[in-house]
């Protein structure tokens, strides 16, 4: 067995869009090791689904190299299909089939796999096994999709936004299913918009934006890479003159500052130094604090700092940022 489950090199996908071509995937590189749970994060339209569907052999790349389980789609299609499991971002299963019938149908496509009852038990759908698909709730349909992905007992599982729309309990159930797979050495590639999910579930994540990987590493890694460990969020009583976030960027141990919906967020190294400095600064400029909280840095902050417009211009990479800034001022 290859020790890397997925290998992607310089992947490009261009769609003929209605308003000119769209580069959905734009030079993406990726390696996923066997046994890993790997997360693809990115805003809407980043190219996650396109990438995953190319890996699943459902879409063809414009150019680039793709290897799945050490095989290539052009030559080993049937073998790869026997060994992978898939959930699409959305699938409408036929209304008038029961849950068990759907799972049994998909089981028949694989040389080897799991008992339909076992699979339904894993996703906690055994009580619905005789119910028509049309009578399932949205979350139950999603669990059915996962059950169907598992029924061939895949070595590599692709899950495209498997928990979108699920209630917290169903989400946790699904996380358990994925953890159990990782425990048995199976590989999972999932896309998600939930940072907490990626943080808890994934060994490594790649943040994708505009068809490229812009950050890669373990969630903890990415968080430390942001520089600080803590976020200080605060709001100020309304004042006459507008306030720029930059104003707070040079305070003690502040690594970066950004404006939020109703206040500001500072990424800081040492809250016990940053907060007094902030209070002093506010006193000097005669402004009153309306709210102040602190919390640990999360993957969410990494995501916002990497994909948010504010930081992209100045902080993405220093040289690039300064060029852009100069252009902006001209």
């Amino acid at each position: 067995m290859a020790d890397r489950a997925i290998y992607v090199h310089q992947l490009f996908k261009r769609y003929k869009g209605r308003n000119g071509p769209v580069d959905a995937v734009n030079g993406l590189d990726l390696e996923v090791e066997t046994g890993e749970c790997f997360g693809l994060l990115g805003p809407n339209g980043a190219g996650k689904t396109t990438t995953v569907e190319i890996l699943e052999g459902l879409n063809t790349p414009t150019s680039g190299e793709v290897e799945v389980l050490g095989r290539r789609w052009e030559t080993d299609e049937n073998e790869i299909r026997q060994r992978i499991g898939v959930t699409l971002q959305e699938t409408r299963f036929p209304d008038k089939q029961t849950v068990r019938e759907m799972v049994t149908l998909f089981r028949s496509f694989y040389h080897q796999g799991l008992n339909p009852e076992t699979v339904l038990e894993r996703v906690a759908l055994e009580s619905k096994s005789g119910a028509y698909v049309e009578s399932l709730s949205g979350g139950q349909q999603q669990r059915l999709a996962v059950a169907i992905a598992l029924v061939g007992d895949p070595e590599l599982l692709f899950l495209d936004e498997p928990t979108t729309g699920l209630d917290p309990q169903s989400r946790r159930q699904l996380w358990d299913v994925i953890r159990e797979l990782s425990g048995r050495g199976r590989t999972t590639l999932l896309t998600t918009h939930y940072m907490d999910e990626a943080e808890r579930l994934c060994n490594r994540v790649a943040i994708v934006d505009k068809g490229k990987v812009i950050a890669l590493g373990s969630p903890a890694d990415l968080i430390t890479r942001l520089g600080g460990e803590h976020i200080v969020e605060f709001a100020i009583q309304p004042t006459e003159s507008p306030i720029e976030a930059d104003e707070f960027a040079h305070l003690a141990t502040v690594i970066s500052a950004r404006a939020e919906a109703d206040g500001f967020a500072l990424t800081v190294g040492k809250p016990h130094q940053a907060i007094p400095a902030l209070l002093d600064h506010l006193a000097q400029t005669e402004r009153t604090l309306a709210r102040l909280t602190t919390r640990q840095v999360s993957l969410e902050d990494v995501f916002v700092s990497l994909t948010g417009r504010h930081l992209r211009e100045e902080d993405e990479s220093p040289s690039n940022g300064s060029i852009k800034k100069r252009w902006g001022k001209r």
Partner: protein
Amino acid sequence: MSSLAPLFQLYKSRLREFFRQPARIFWVYGFPLVLAVGLGLAFKSKPVEMIPVDLVESGSWNEVAKTIGTHNTKPGPSLDPRISIHSGTAEGTDNRLKTGKTPLVILAISPTQVEYRYDPTRPESVTARNAVDSILQRAAGRPDPVKTSDIVIDEPGSRYIDFLIPGLIGLNTMGGGLFGVGFLIVNFRVGKLLKRFMATPMPRRDFLLAIVGARLTFLVPDIAVLLSLGHFGFQMPIRGSLLLVVMLDVIGALAFAGIGLLIAARANNTETVSGLVNLVMLPMWLFSGVFFSAERFPDAIQPFIQALPLTQLISGLRMVILEGAGPLQIWVPLTVLTVWSVVTFVVALKIFKWS
């Protein structure tokens, strides 16, 4: 697991899907039945009704009324229609003629002179005039120098219902192929289910075979329901071989499944596919001779009509069921339908979009 498992499971799944949808069952079995019973009763052969005429109350109108009354009460079977009289003033009856309430106004000037007022372009007026004239002339002593005899044709096999049943079988076969294959596949595509199937090692061939196999399976009850209704309900004769009826219908079903597949090959929304299905079905509803003979259309468009698969299927079915034709006599329908099947399947599979 044996390699037949996917095909078997897919096939079962298609059958279940159909039989669990009461609405679809109605459209496939109930609707043609209702149509057959309704049209069968509406066009049931019945004697010509009484012919209504108007009589002006002047001159010797009483004598005319008496003559017609005698004719109406003549005992024994008579093929001459009975006449019903509405009498009134000259003005009143004229008005009724102009407004189409009566086909004929009779003015009895004297016992030996009668005037008919009518519009010769209205067939029922001409019929009424001739009927009344014949009654009056005969009553006045006109001899019938030519001996005539009437033979009644109301035999099973030549009535409207006999004509209709094969037409409805054909119509059902067409609907089943276009909806059962075309719509089904496009719905799968819209719901991303087609893509989901493609993500598995499912053999594509099995997927299509299951759909076509289920279509052919549904033919059996299709044919059985309509043939039984015709045979047991309306004494329609089945003069040819039942096996040949089924065989012909199977080839017809393959042709329509092929057209359904072609329609579904690239369409990725239900609007497109319903537009295409209607585009294909409409000309056949009109021209293929379901409800009345296709030969009534002008010669100029006959080549087009004869090339339509439904025309051939229905004409073949009528030949076997009503005329007792054997396989050799229906070689034209068999050939045309086979060509349709092969060509549509080959083209559809070439251009089919699997995602």
